[in-house]
């Protein structure tokens, strides 16, 4: 596939663009202005970026208060600290109080690689998915990131944007239009569905190409909105393709795969495989190494899909 893009750049440039048109937009960060790619934002809008220091609880509480005061705060911080350290502020000050705060977790999943388990953010979807009144968006490429940031700004209420730092190819056509709550079908097929979000979307597409060589036609759906999840797309996948593989850069407990499984199990049960980090703290290694280690690769997705298809065939 094509050139790789860091979605944080699309996030930062889009936020800048939105801020230009809407004086209510402000940014907060926990001394991670540069890793959130907001240095340029800080130059353009020195009075609208608040580096609140290494203090995530106060950062999220402040964002809630600023929203109360009429601002639209985008809180950009490493996802592990943003969601873990400030979880109660996210629950009470943002979601329960229903303030118009946009939480932007950067360097999500395994992106910090060898920095280890303290820095991996593979629980954030599960934590935030359990909180009422929370919208969760996991964009797959820079195009979708840009649109997701705009959608979050337009949406009135709490949103969690999950932004990787890993280079990803563009998987959408130029005319793609992201809509909160809508999955998008990137490839047709009726033998099995590969459902993915974020960094696993291009890998699912590559897996589908491999499966085609084995005469298995895989449907690929990008489910960027993990909450509220697109139930219709999931039911259609279950009914029309008979089995589903999910793939995510997150623990398999309570994340994207669980969200899909909740719909499948209660509407049209079909066999599933949930690929992700299998409930362990990752060993030392680069992100690519860890993706290989946990089978979050085109091959890994292909193998899971093949197994599902074969187990469904008459003996």
């Amino acid at each position, binding site marked *: 596939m094509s050139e790789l893009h860091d979605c944080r750049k699309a996030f930062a440039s889009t936020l800048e663009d939105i801020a230009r048109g809407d004086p209510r937009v402000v940014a907060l960060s926990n001394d991670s202005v540069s890793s959130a790619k907001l240095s340029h934002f800080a130059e353009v809008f020195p009075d609208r970026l608040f580096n609140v*220091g290494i*203090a995530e609880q*106060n950062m999220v509480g402040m964002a*809630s*208060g*600023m929203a*109360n*005061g009429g601002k639209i705060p985008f809180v950009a911080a490493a996802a592990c600290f943003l969601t873990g350290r400030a979880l*109660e502020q996210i629950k009470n000050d943002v979601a329960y109080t229903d303030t118009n705060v946009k939480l932007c977790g950067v360097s999500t999943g395994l992106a910090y690689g060898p920095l280890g388990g303290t820095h991996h953010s593979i629980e954030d979807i599960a934590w935030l998915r359990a909180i009422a009144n929370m919208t969760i968006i996991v964009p797959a490429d820079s195009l979708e990131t840009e649109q997701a940031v705009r959608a979050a700004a337009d949406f009135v209420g709490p949103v969690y944007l999950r932004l990787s730092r890993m280079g990803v190819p563009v998987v959408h056509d130029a005319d793609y239009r992201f809509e909160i709550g809508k999955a998008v079908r990137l490839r047709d097929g009726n033998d099995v569905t590969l459902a993915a979000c974020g960094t696993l979307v291009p890998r699912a597409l590559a897996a589908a190409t491999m499966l085609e060589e084995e005469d298995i036609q895989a449907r690929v759906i990008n489910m960027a909105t993990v909450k509220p999840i697109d139930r219709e797309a999931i039911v259609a996948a279950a009914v029309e393709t008979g089995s589903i593989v999910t793939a995510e850069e997150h623990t398999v407990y309570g994340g994207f795969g669980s969200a899909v499984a909740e719909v499948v199990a209660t509407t049209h049960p079909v066999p599933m495989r949930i690929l992700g980090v299998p409930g362990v703290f990752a060993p030392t290694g680069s992100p690519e190494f860890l993706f290989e280690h946990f089978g979050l690769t085109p091959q890994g997705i292909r193998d899971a899909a093949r197994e599902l298809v074969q187990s469904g065939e008459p003996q």
Partner: protein
Amino acid sequence: MMPIDSQALHKKAYEIRQRNLVMIYEAGGGHTGGDLSSADILAALYLNGVLNVDPKNPRAPDRDRFFMSKGHSSGLLYTTLAFAGFFPEEELSTFMKPLSRLNGHPNVHVPGVEANTGALGHGLPMAVGAALAAKMDGASWRTFVLTGDGELQEGSNWEAAMAAAQYQLDNLTLIVDRNRFQMIDRTERIVGLEPLADKWHAFGWSVREINGHDHAEIMQTFSAIPFEVGKPNCVLAYTHKGEGVSFIKDRAAWHHRVPTDEELNAALEELRGAA
């Protein structure tokens, strides 16, 4: 709202205490001790024109903000809001009843409530954000937040304390209800807070220490805000948990005890006498 004299305000605060206690009795739950300790402060804020709020337009963009960080004193907040005209007083009888909007902790569905508090250590960070928003806009509205004292054991307060000084939020006023008790014992016997005034000074705040039950002193203090230009304001209000009722005052057991019939009658009699 026009300011009233401190005598009249004292009377109002004791009427609030009576209704508050009946409310707790009716609900079979609530936080008796902490409600009674903050009653004079809330009466001053809402019934004497300290807060620029309009019960008929509770979300007016230029209103003053009040964050009730000690959310367990929801009973006092609701009673005061009802007295201030935000909703009918009769509704207080629904406190904590099924589907009532008067939840056991403050909820934004109640007119006049700014945030869903109850988890401690949340109010000050939110108040810092609100005050910062007002500064950005050059707006004249002010932000107030009331915390308990035991609550200051939560580290989030001190993150917010540093930020407030950094941003020179002299439009922010923190009131600490220093009743010297937390749930089961005196703060100083659990994890001590003293020297508390020194701590706030050291964090860059302008500090006033007052008797949190003396209405003249409360009003004088609030009218002196900002105490110093460029510094956030801290009012350490020395109070008594259970103030106004002899057998509740300074008794940790009354943190969330509900009065019996006899206790309620005895307490109301004392409160009427003091009003």
